[in-house]
């Protein structure tokens, strides 16, 4: 019989978008008094039909809807989905930060959640004091932390600064120390949300290695990330969420292909619902209306062989006058999200009036990046690329997948033996084998 450590039954979480209360007691009392006398609520918004009850003016939406699943002891589950799919809400409910609206979740063993590194760090306290404080916040006793102190300190590499207030730490040291405390926790269930989005590349690899070790000791790990390579290398099984519901919960490869498939179908446009999502950054002065990745024959695809030509066809619309216009395309590492290569092109140095529509095609000829997954970062703004009048698409579109042509065996990224990002043309010019 398998050993289930997490079991949920119809777990749901509903948020009310409208007014929860009027924020001040006097207004709430006023509303209550009006309702009690059967009159109109003086504070309710007009033009919204009241559905029988006075509370009808609240829009509701389901962040999680009827999630029922089971997780076995020692398994490593990746959780993926677009922004707003409910990943973070699920982690928050499972780590008891907020209660579900209906349904229930049952958990066996101690849960530690790492939704952020360095929660509760106090800048005035020394590294050592913060280790104890953070450990206690994460549920460790003082004795447990003491036992782990040396390990934590050497993992973070802050031996010399242990008695220095952390406000004097560099941001890198700060993050390393914070992750080190969290990584040395020993809960039965570890819930991790995108903590690897911080720190330098080398440290991120160290973190991934540490998480791999953690999962080998039989602890259960739930891991939310946009980093598909990390999910692939850590988690044999993954869950894909969309609009608060489980799309698939199966082997990671299958889930990832379902995810990429779903991303491919996204129509990006100023009019579509994506535009309303909170993850669309920028002021809205300029918006991409569509972005397509194509080959030279104008077929839409995201997987290319090494050496193939890749074209990015981007349409945009301005909603405000722009002093100029430039686009930027970045290929990021699927493992660490650092930038692998980028291209920046100025479209106009003259003023562009509001309501202008345009299309630009940028080509990467002979792509010599190594096989792997490359999340895209596509950005448009005025020419100095610094103003707030920009639009950016990152995890809203499928990552670029580069495959090898089969002649050479390009191994997938291995954190212990990196192979680099580029495959520059090379050939043997001398090959002497002396006996």
């Amino acid at each position, binding site marked *: 019989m398998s050993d*289930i450590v997490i079991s949920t039954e119809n777990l749901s979480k509903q948020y009310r978008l409208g007014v*929860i*209360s009027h924020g*001040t*007691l006097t207004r709430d009392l006023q509303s209550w008094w009006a309702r009690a006398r059967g009159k109109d609520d003086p504070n309710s918004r007009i033009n919204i039909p009241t559905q029988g009850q006075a509370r009808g003016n609240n829009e509701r939406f389901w962040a999680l809807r009827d999630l029922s699943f089971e997780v076995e002891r020692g398994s490593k589950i990746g959780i993926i989905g677009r922004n707003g799919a409910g990943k973070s809400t699920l982690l928050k409910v499972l780590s008891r930060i907020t209660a579900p609206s209906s349904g229930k979740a049952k*958990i*066996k063993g101690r849960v530690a959640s790492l939704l952020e590194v360095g929660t509760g760090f*106090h800048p005035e306290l020394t590294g050592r004091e913060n280790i104890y404080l953070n450990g206690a*916040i994460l549920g*460790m006793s003082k004795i447990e932390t003491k036992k782990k102190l040396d390990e934590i300190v050497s993992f973070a590499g802050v031996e010399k600064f242990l008695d220095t207030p952390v406000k004097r730490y560099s941001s890198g040291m700060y993050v390393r120390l914070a992750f080190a405390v969290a990584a040395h926790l020993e809960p039965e269930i570890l819930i991790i949300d995108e903590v690897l989005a911080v720190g330098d590349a080398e440290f991120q690899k160290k973190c991934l290695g540490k998480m791999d070790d953690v999962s080998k000791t039989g602890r259960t790990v739930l891991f939310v990330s946009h980093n598909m390579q990390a999910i692939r290398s850590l988690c044999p099984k993954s869950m894909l969420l969309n609009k608060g519901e489980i799309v698939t919960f199966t082997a990671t490869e299958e889930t990832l292909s379902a995810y990429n498939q779903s991303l491919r179908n996204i129509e990006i446009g100023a009019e579509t619902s994506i535009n309303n999502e909170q993850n669309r950054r920028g002021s809205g002065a300029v918006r991409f209306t569509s972005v397509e990745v194509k080959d030279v024959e104008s077929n839409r695809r995201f997987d290319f062989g090494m050496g193939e030509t890749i074209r990015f066809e981007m349409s945009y619309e301005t909603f405000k006058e722009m002093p100029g216009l430039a686009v930027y395309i970045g290929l990021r590492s699927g493992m660490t999200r650092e930038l692998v290569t980028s291209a920046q092109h100025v479209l106009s140095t003259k003023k562009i009036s509001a309501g202008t529509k345009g299309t630009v095609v940028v080509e990467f000829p002979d792509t010599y990046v190594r096989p792997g997954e490359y999340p895209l970062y596509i950005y448009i703004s005025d020419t100095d690329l610094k103003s707030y009048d920009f639009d950016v698409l990152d995890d809203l579109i499928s990552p670029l997948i580069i495959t090898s042509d089969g002649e050479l065996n390009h191994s997938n990224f291995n954190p212990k033996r990196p192979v680099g990002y580029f495959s520059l043309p090379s050939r043997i010019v001398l090959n002497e084998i002396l006996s």
Partner: protein
Amino acid sequence: MNLTSEQRSEQWATVIQPHTGWFNFNFSELWRYRDLVAMLVRRDFVVFYKQTILGPTWFLLQPLLTTIMFTVVFGNIAHISTNGLPQILFYMSGIVLWNYFAMCLTNTSSTFITNAAIFGKVYFPRLAVPVSVVITNLITFAIQFCLFLAFMLYFYLRGAGIRPNMLILILPLLLFQLAALGLGIGILISSLTTKYRDLTYLVTFGVQLWMYATPVVYPMSLIPRKWQWVYALNPMASVIETFRYAFLGAGAVQFSRLALSFGMTIVILLIGVILFSRIERTFMDTV
């Protein structure tokens, strides 16, 4: 088969549900996190110490200056009776006790709002924070209490008519009551402030008004007989009166009132804990 699944379900350590009973506070869990409470107390104390030039001297200066102020204004200008006690001792005893209560109340009343960032990222029994505040303030109280004892010794040796008696032994109970009352009202307000921000403005103001409704700057004996019952409803009144009687030997102790005040404290604390543990489950959605 049904039996095995029943048996299995009994092993769940945590069941996360939308609503549980009215009183779902888990004391054993708070106890498990006692190291966290200790660390929070340490943090608050160390941070205070590091950020000020005078450090703990502030803890002495504050009651000292207030006592002088009260002695001048209420004692020498308004000539309010002190039940025959040296004015300094009379005011200081009231101030030191009131301070502890007021600090517990105001510092815990902002629990949810000041800790929203950390509460949103990690789970631990939320009550650990206000409890740590009460303990931190207990250290402050201890320092101020020593100041009071020093003055008491000085006046005693000079032969002022102060008569400490066996009721001194009741001090831990009085302290518990101050802490419980401050904590109870504080977490009650902090629970309500997640919904009604305007209550935060009321707190400092309300505490000040409450002080004047409590025999801090005047003795109970000045209150007309027909209004005495109002004071019986103020749980702070009998705490301060009892303390003065125990340490200085002036005034009177009415045990029935003390018991009533104790009962009220417990009820307020219970209501606070119940409301707090209900709010803590969903407040992240509203803050």
